[in-house]
Structure formats: C-alpha cells, structure tokens
C-alpha cells in the first residue's frame, strides 16, 4: 500500500507523527523514552553502544542517535517529545535542539523566540519556502528522499 496523500503534507519543515511515521520510529522512540529511568540513563552513559543494542534501531537511526543528528532522528521516525529525552540526557535545552533542527545556533534561536518567534507568514506552505529563496529547503520533510536535506539557514 502506498500512503495516500494528506492535507498536512504541504506544511514545510514539519514531521507529522502519523501512523506511518510512528511505525518507522517505534524502536527509536522507545529507546528515547527509556531514558526516563535513572538506571537506564546510567547504563546508557556507561556504554552507549551496548545500551543501544537493547533496541532494534536501524543502522541509520543508530547513527543519528550517536551523532545527535536531531533533525535526522525526526526524519527517521522520531518524535520530538521522545527524542528530547536524549537532549535532556545531554543537558541541552529546547533552544539548542530547535536551533540545531533549523540551522541556527542556540543563541540565534533564543533571540528569534524573544523577538516573537518564527512568523507564520511565509512558513505555511512548502511552496512558500521554495519560491521564497529558490532553494529546496522544504525537502527536509519529503519522506521519500531524506538524505542530506537537513540544512537550511536562519529563517527567523
């Protein structure tokens, strides 16, 4: 079965955690959630590779976890509430991770938020990102073609 098109597919830079996405990310997200537990955090800290062996991650997912590729994790089925458990483990904040996913530093991201956040205008439709800049920044959420599209500059 090919997944039927959804009316939310054209929201740019957004990974809707629907059934297809959830299926792909199940093991990845369950690994992340396990870090709610103090003993698991200690085990993961002591030997990340061995700890990850407990979960049936794909090689790509494993790599994304080990390299802390926050956007990559989302593209491989991660959900931000789950992957953020790993950021908590690292002592990071939502501004660190928000910046990393959108190609900004933590301080740039914080500054954007304090200035009122990323505006909706120009950020509602994938076509706006394309026509805006001439590049294909929106392909980051093209589920069929996920390689090397993590980039994208400061759009705040």
């Amino acid at each position, binding site marked *: 079965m090919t997944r039927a098109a959804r009316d939310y597919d054209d*929201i740019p830079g957004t990974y809707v955690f629907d059934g297809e996405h959830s299926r792909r990310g199940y093991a990845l997200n369950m690994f992340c959630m396990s870090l*709610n537990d103090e003993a698991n955090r200690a085990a993961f800290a002591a030997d990340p590779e061995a700890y990850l062996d407990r979960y049936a991650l794909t090689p790509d997912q494993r790599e994304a976890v080990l390299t802390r590729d926050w956007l990559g994790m989302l593209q491989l089925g991660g959900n931000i*509430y789950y992957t953020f458990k790993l950021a*908590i483990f690292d002592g990071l904040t*939502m501004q660190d*991770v*928000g910046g990393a*996913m959108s*190609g900004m530093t933590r301080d740039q991201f914080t500054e954007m938020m304090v200035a009122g956040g*990323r505006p909706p205008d120009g950020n509602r439709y994938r076509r706006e990102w394309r026509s805006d800049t001439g590049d294909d920044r929106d392909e980051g959420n093209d589920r069929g073609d996920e390689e090397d599209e993590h980039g994208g500059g400061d759009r705040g």
Partner: protein
Amino acid sequence: MTGAMRRTSTGVAIVAELVAGIGTSHVPAVGAAIDNGRQGEPYWAPYFDKIEPVRAWMAEADPDVCIVVYNDHASAFSLQIIPTFAIGVAAQFPPADEGYGPRAVPVAEGHPELAWHLAESLILDEFDMTIVNEMPIDHGCTVPLSVAFGQPERWPCRLIPICVNVIQYPAPTGHRCYQLGRAIRRALDAWPGDERVVIFGTGGMSHQLQGERAGLVNAEFDRAFMDRLVADPVAQAAVGHTEYMREAGSEGIELVMWLVMRGALDSDVREVLRVNHVPTSNTSNGLIVLEPR
C-alpha cells in the same frame, strides 16, 4: 464551600459546582523556573508578574477539586499503548521522571470516588475512556498546578487528571473534545457531592518544537483562538487538525484540550482574566480564566 443547588422534580439537590474553567499553556520551562527559583530573572519576571492575578483569583476561588485536562508527554504512557482519552482514578499521583528526575512538587491527592463517577458516566455517555489506576503526572499536569498555586507544601485541592493524546496523530477532533467537556459537565451535574470544581484545559498556545520550522509562533492565531473560545466555541470546535498544525505549529494542536474545558462550562461565560506572553521557552504562553455566568 458548598456545591450548587439544582432544582429537581422532587425538590432541591446538592450537586458539584463548576466554579470556573482555566485554559493555560503547560510549558516545562515554567516549572523549571519555579523549581529553580528563577522567577525574578529578567527573562522570567515579566511572565510571572502577569500570572500573579491568576494566583490571587485561585486563592479566592479555593476549589476542592481540579480536573486537569492535559497530555502526557512520553512519561506515563509510551507508544506501546496510546489512549485517546484517559482518566486517572488513583488515590495519589506522583510527579513523573521526565529525564531530569521528578519535579520537587507535592504528590497530588486524587479523588477516586468522583473520578470513578466520571469514568462510569462518561463511558455510559458513549465516550470511550481508558481508566487508569496508576500513573505519574508530568509537566503537562504539574506546571498548570504550579502556575495556579505556586509552591505549597501540599496542593490545596484534589486532582482528577484527564489525559488526551495529542502526540500520536490523530488527536481527537476539536469537536469531540468539546463534546467530552459537555459530558463531563453532565456527570458533574449528577454527582451528589458538594465539591467546588475547577477544570483546566492545558497545552498550546502556538508552538512548534520540531523540524526546520521549529519556533513558529502565531500570536494572531492565539488571540483569535481565545476570542472564539469565549464567544463561539462551537465554531472553534469545528477547526481541523491541519489548520492548527499549519497556523499554530505542529504542537499547537494541544489547543484542542482547551475545548474540553470550554465544553464543561455553560454556553455563556464571563472572561475574568487573560494573559499572553511570548515566549516561554519555544512557546507562546497563554492563560484564560472563564466563569459560568
């Protein structure tokens, strides 16, 4: 502190009194700011100044029970089992470890009798509730309590948590959430106790935590949402998921939980207080207090 009087065919009965509905964001960073004594810092002081009147209002309202409608964020529930609507019937609800260790807030006391009454009523009223006997509560529930009550030794009221799935797509529709609120009200109106009840709808406002669009805030959407929540909730309840996600960010979908609160109130409400503050962390933070007229 007595409940409402309801006229019945055989006279007057005491029933629970729904004192107010509160819509509020439940941003974890707000809880951390409180727990770490950072409320006076320049980043935080303007926000905490704004919510001072809410705390004063709550102290005055002095509810016996708070029904807090929120979503669990991978704390009590994992992807293994994802309830659309869950109601906690436990005697106690400890704070969850979300990865930092549990928040240093009191264990919340439940109200099992009323919670079971709600669960039974809602299921017979054809809401497909999941009944939960043991669950920790995460920032979705504890931050609204902190916003409302500050840092007491014990929470000054009992808690009935109702969890709504808004993480796994699809969340229940806004319409369904509004109808759940109406069913909660019917159940309260049939409860032969004299409790004073406040219901919280939490989450939102506009925010997107994920992806290249992280940081989205739509203050205009948030204002319009609050306006319609007060004046025309049925129209707001008809708004679909994609409009929330597109306009208010992927995590803005949490706003459907405010509709549960709104559904529990009378059709005509009085807006007592409204707060808007951008940002707390990556979120547009809003709060509204509504009383039945």
